[in-house]
């Protein structure tokens, strides 16, 4: 109840944990774990209730996809596609950038963004080294493409996974409603990047020839495993497309694909399970407990009432508020805890008013996913790429990235505003 000791304690713990997550002083999973345990220890939420707050659909979908990707990446398929694409451009840096960005965007729509950039980064670094060219334009383009591509589908980015799981919106709903916007934003982003980087993307002809010497076939490590992985992946994507019509959850589809691939691939399960990003999985679990506790004590409902007071239950105003706040906030904050907090908030707004909240989910997804492009700390993929660049002696500073990322993020949110207005709010 608002005003009670539990209510105040829950708010203080939540804000403190959130602040520490933002400050990055302590590992985000460690501090979320501590916060969740504190909520249980102080009896703000019971242990059984805490377990009930965990969204196992999100967890199942994440684990299922991670298992499949970990098996697929052993085949060298991503490197094959990247090398083949680079050779198709005859070594032209701009077209290589377009090709690698497109591969990143498409892969990100189907896989986790961090996994995608980790798969594309090695090839990018080897190609830019061969071309004797700065990898920063390529890697920045890949960051932007990963976050834009991830926006397009339910499984592309954790915010979408959480929204899909909590709202019952399916894979096709996300694809139909978000992919067109993501596609337009991707094209506009590439167009702007061409102007930003065109002077830096010039190389001598003899260096271009080096790209043609790469042999994409040498990248394939296991043809049998590749065939098995691609077949299972294709059926899994088909399963995502049909899950609403056959009454299966996306998590069930992903876990089925993962278990079948693990069974037929004969890969060592110990190695595959070791590769799962358990820190991310447990971060989600503890976050669900933290937000669930906030919901339990009535804090989310109180904030929702405040939002409804401001917007007067006006859908257009609420949607634009959700879009822009999500966009700006996600540029600076971790979008996973932000979305985890926003989901029950939007559900409460729906319960307090008579408005159709479906457009609000699209506004949240567009804002949270695209907002990640705004700064170097906006999304996990950005942080990973910045780390990779630094380790390879091509440091990109926070400000240097923001000069490119933030205006492009604002452009993407403007396009999203127009898109939402024309198709859902007009």
């Amino acid at each position, binding site marked *: 109840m608002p005003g009670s000791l539990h209510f105040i304690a829950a708010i203080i713990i939540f804000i403190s944990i959130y602040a520490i997550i933002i400050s990055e002083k302590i590992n985000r999973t460690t501090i979320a774990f501590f916060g969740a345990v504190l909520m249980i220890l102080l009896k703000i939420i019971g242990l059984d209730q805490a377990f009930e707050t965990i969204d196992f659909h999100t967890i199942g979908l994440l684990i299922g996809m991670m298992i499949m990707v970990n098996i697929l990446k052993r085949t060298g398929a991503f*490197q094959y596609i990247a090398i083949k694409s680079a050779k198709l451009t005859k070594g032209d840096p701009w077209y290589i950038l377009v090709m690698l960005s497109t591969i990143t965007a498409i892969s990100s729509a189907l896989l986790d963004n961090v996994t995608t950039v*980790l798969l594309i980064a090695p090839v990018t670094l080897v190609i830019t080294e061969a071309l004797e060219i700065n990898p920063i334009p390529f890697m920045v383009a890949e960051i932007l493409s990963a976050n834009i591509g991830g926006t397009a589908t339910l499984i592309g980015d954790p915010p979408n996974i959480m929204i899909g799981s909590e709202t019952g919106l399916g894979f096709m709903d996300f694809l139909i409603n978000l992919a067109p916007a993501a596609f337009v934003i991707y094209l506009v982003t590439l167009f702007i990047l061409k102007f930003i980087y065109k002077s830096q993307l010039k190389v001598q002809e003899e260096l271009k020839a080096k790209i043609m010497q790469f042999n994409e076939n040498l990248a394939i490590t296991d043809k049998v495993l590749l065939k098995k992985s691609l077949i299972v992946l294709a059926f899994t994507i088909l399963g995502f497309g049909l899950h609403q019509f056959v009454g299966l959850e996306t998590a069930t589809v992903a876990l089925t694909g993962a278990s079948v691939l693990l069974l037929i691939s004969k890969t060592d399960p110990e190695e595959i399970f070791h590769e799962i990003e358990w820190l991310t999985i447990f971060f989600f679990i503890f976050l669900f407990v933290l937000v669930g506790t906030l919901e339990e004590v009535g804090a989310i409902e109180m904030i929702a009432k405040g939002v409804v007071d401001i917007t007067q239950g006006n859908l257009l105003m609420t949607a634009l508020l959700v879009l822009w706040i999500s966009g700006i906030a996600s540029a600076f904050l971790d979008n996973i805890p932000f979305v985890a907090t926003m989901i029950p908030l939007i559900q409460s707004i729906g319960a307090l008013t008579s408005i159709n909240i479906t457009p609000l989910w699209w506004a949240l997804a567009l804002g949270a996913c695209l907002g990640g492009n705004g700064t170097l700390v906006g999304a996990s993929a950005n942080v990973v790429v910045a780390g990779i660049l630094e*380790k390879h002696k091509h440091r990109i500073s926070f400000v240097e990235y923001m000069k490119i990322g933030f205006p492009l993020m604002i452009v993407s949110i403007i396009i999203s505003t127009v898109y939402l207005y024309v198709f859902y709010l007009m």
Partner: protein
Amino acid sequence: MSKQFLDLEKDIHELKLRQMGAEVEDIRGIMHYVCFKLDGTSVKYVYHINKKGKYFLQRRSPYPLNVGTYESKEDIINIIQHDLAQMKNAKKSKKFDKFIEINQSLSITMRNFEDLFLYYNVSRTQTEKLEEALQQFKSLILETRDMSERVYFEKDPDTL
């Protein structure tokens, strides 16, 4: 360095090596750095345990030596035990420092020899001279063995 970056580096190395035509096998395992202190002398080893059942042991200090590849993890400890006991024994000798110095010099000579053949077109006559000098050196080792009292009996010498 986080696991993510380690994996990335591994991927870059693998990509480059495969493009060079190599077959690369990725064996996950644990690298052990082992250090003993023998009256001010560091005796260091490095080895890698993994699920594949091949263990590479190398001594890094007081002079580097590829000890070998073993089929069992127990062999590694056994070899280190003997090597360390032999080092302790050798340490008692007044000539220990000289022994280390000669060994280090031999390691450098090996590198000199490698560079000679990798960077220069060495004539047949000079190659034969080098071989002859090596044979003389080998004979000197055998002659010294025959003239010296054996002091370690826990295991027989691997090469003499």
